[in-house]
């Protein structure tokens, strides 16, 4: 990052740039997890979904660039990432609803399976360079290259920002939104209404995994824009904590994602001005932040405001 010319101003600029870049995957994964948890099931396996999405997006973008050109290939990749997410989501959605199967355990299994599959199939794509998604240049007004590069915003990020209020409206004002909330809050009432709990939860998990897969595409086709086995450092898991922090509200998921993206950018921003001493501890900032938020907001006496009633229960 060319922040030398800016001196100390490079730190806030670096954090801003990192927030805009790094919050896109958080946004998609947390919206996906929010949709899933509203129906009363937890999907801890989104970490695997994210990796699988990142790998599929990168691989498809690389393989199809010769056929559809450098502009459309990454978009096919985004689609492939979503489909890969739906594939993993359908396994989770089916297995986690079998009797006596713990959804948390299925989530851990799906992390192992999803990341294993992503590393297995993604091995040939570690070296080559795949075409990336185009970015919108919001920094063209500035002559400073650091500002310009900080304000390169991905259209995927903007799509994610648009999905948040849409999902809010979906939960509040549509028939299907009501079904999901009913199944999540009170499965008995939903059953009495004649709603198929299995179907609603299955579809919520699959749709949530679709969004998480696209979150993976943000990682490999936008920022950091490569495919490596270490591309996701627990973002899929942090989404679970993020949704708790956002109180199962899609709009608040957006703010929480920006906060987490920013926290993730602190370490690299300080490193860019030559402060390396606490690099690893700054990098752990999002995890520490999540833990502190949970300590402050949780209580053993009551369930959280906004929590779906049947979340974490056996039913």
């Amino acid at each position: 990052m060319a922040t030398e010319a800016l001196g100390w101003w490079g730190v806030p600029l670096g954090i801003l740039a990192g927030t805009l870049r790094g919050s896109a995957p958080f946004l998609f994964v947390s919206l996906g997890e929010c949709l899933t948890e509203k129906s009363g099931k937890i999907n801890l396996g989104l970490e695997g979904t994210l990796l699988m999405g990142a790998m599929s997006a990168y691989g498809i973008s690389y393989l199809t660039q010769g056929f559809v050109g450098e502009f459309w290939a990454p978009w096919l990749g985004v689609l492939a990432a979503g489909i890969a997410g739906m594939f993993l989501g359908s396994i989770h959605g089916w297995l986690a609803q079998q009797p006596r199967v713990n959804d948390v355990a299925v989530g851990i299994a799906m992390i192992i399976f999803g990341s294993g599959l992503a590393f297995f199939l993604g091995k040939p794509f570690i070296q080559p360079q795949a075409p990336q998604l185009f970015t919108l240049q919001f920094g063209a007004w500035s002559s400073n290259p650091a500002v310009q590069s900080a304000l390169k915003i991905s259209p995927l990020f903007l799509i994610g920002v648009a999905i948040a209020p849409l999902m809010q409206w979906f939960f509040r004002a549509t028939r299907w939104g009501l079904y999901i909330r009913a199944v999540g809050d009170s499965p008995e009432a939903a059953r009495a209404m004649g709603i198929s709990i299995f179907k609603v939860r299955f579809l919520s998990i699959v749709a949530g995994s679709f969004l998480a897969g696209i979150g993976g595409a943000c990682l490999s086709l936008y920022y950091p824009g490569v495919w490596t086995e270490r591309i996701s450092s627990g973002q899929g898991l942090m989404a679970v904590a993020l949704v708790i922090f956002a109180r199962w509200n899609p709009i608040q998921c957006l703010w929480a994602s920006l906060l987490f993206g920013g926290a993730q950018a602190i370490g690299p921003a300080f490193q860019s001005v030559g402060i390396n001493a606490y690099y690893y501890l700054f990098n752990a900032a999002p995890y520490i932040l999540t833990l502190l938020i949970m300590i402050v907001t949780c209580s053993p006496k009551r369930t959280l405001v906004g929590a779906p009633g049947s979340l974490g229960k056996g039913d």
Partner: protein
Amino acid sequence: MTIAFPAGASWLSRWRRPLESVLLPIAALVVALLIFGIFCALSGANPLAVYGSIYRAAFGSWSAWQNTLIRAAPLMLTALCTALPARLGLVIIGNEGALVIGGLCAVVMGLSVGATLPPFMGQMAMAIAAIVGGGVWIMLAGALRHYRGVNETISSLLLNYIAIAVMNHLVEGPMRDAEFVTKPSSAELSEALWMGTIPGSRIHYGLIYGLIACVLAYVLIQRTTFGFAARTTGGNLRAARIAGLPVGKLTLAVCFLGGSCAGLAGMIEVAAVQKRINESLVSNYGYAGILVAFVSRHNPLATILVAVLLGGILASGGILQRSHDLPDATVLVFQGIVFLCVLFSDSLYGRLPWFQEKPVV
């Protein structure tokens, strides 16, 4: 519950229920092997040859057995970190973090005692430091659960990342050995503190630690009042409260014990394998331990068996890459398939008519 069997009832009807808990996991493993075979065939490798390679690399010879057992030792211990709290109804997945903190505490202790103590005492000091470090680390997750209602699965998972960051920070900064250039690491442990091998083999004493820990854990959970109280709490929290069981103390104690096992695994890895601490300590033994715990259905004795099996699978990772041209992630895919099949088999308990006792009216 007593069910009267007529005198002529075959031994089979008496053993159908116990058989269920043995045959179902085995069936799950066989199905997992079949699915994995299809997966191998799709990626262009001959499934039978792959099975053969896994068997030879894992259990085919004394040398293979030694490789397997070396890997099984830390797995037994990290599995207990999930299995013990699971009996209390908690899903703890902070194994990797507790292992790292345990290794870190052991190295700090080892570097500070150096060669001043007799080797046995020095190693014991390291083990105790690791047990306390790992135990307190997971006890933190248990305390957050009990006093603040924080979901223990997520907090223990976040603690993994924090533990790894703390370790990286220390080996890059305050603890760094400037003379060791290949990767940022601490100074090497004094040779007196290296863990020896069982005579006649390459297997280090960590295996004995693992076996003892599993047997002790089994006795504690199944044969003591403490274990009974823990299982009662895991079975029905409200009933346990009404019966006056000290749920808070039980939570803290069981989490401490679980974490201390994973911490001990960290000490074994640094004292027997790495000899110093650096990023190589983070080698997925923690996450594999979660798998072992769930596959063994949180039974500490079954843990020994499953850890040996998984140790064998891990030991075969290299050979799959060399002789079948499969990526090293193949082992991870296999683990995932096994885990999913075993979880599905859990849902079949009591649903297969053959396994039901048939009391004669």
